[in-house]
């Protein structure tokens, strides 16, 4: 079946602009996660949703970052007033539930470059 999809695959923007990154999880998966992977590092947690609500947003670096999942499926990560330090690959993952034993399935990521 279809895996996790993310669009766009690449996004180049200018410092100060607003961007939206989209994630479409595996059908039927109730838990959705966003991670950020900088060059040479492992993914770092940003936020996770159980259904429509953000159950844990402790990884968001500041209030320029926001994410929504209004219908419990597709999620959008929103970054306001982008900075060069926001450049990274943004990964989305989903799992059947948020149970700790469930593996997460990752999308291919969106590579964000802020000039």
């Amino acid at each position: 079946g279809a895996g996790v999809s993310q669009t766009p695959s690449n996004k180049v923007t200018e410092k100060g602009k607003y961007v939206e990154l989209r994630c479409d999880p595996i059908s039927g998966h109730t838990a959705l996660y966003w991670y950020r992977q900088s060059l040479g590092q492992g993914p770092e947690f940003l936020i996770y949703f159980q259904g429509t609500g953000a159950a844990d947003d402790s990884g968001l670096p500041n209030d320029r970052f926001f994410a929504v999942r209004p219908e419990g499926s597709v999620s959008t990560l929103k970054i306001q007033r982008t900075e060069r330090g926001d450049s990274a690959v943004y990964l989305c993952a989903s799992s059947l539930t948020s149970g700790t034993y469930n593996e997460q399935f990752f999308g291919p990521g969106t590579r964000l470059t802020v000039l």
Partner: protein
Amino acid sequence: AQSVAQPEDQVNVAEGNPLTVKCTYSVSGNPYLFWYVQYPNRGLQFLLKYITGDNLVKGSYGFEAEFNKSQTSFHLKKPSALVSDSALYFCAVRDTKSARQLTFGSGTQLTVLP
């Protein structure tokens, strides 16, 4: 708090030889442990997980991992490496007491030489 360490940035092994990629972890509760592999310009692919039970876990593509509670380690192994195994490998942990998110190590680049 939970953390993962992958002490080797790079591991080189000859094709046909056994390989080991090391991982140690720290959690306050019991750990759930995972290995993922990342190929260039691709997302992370799940390899295997340890939840409970047998300390030797078997996963995809002939990989296995051994959970050692006393050494807080979860090393990834394969008896006979293939050139196609060359990729970036990440170990990850979840703390059963509190965390829903995964904490990843910094990754180990595995190169299998023909």
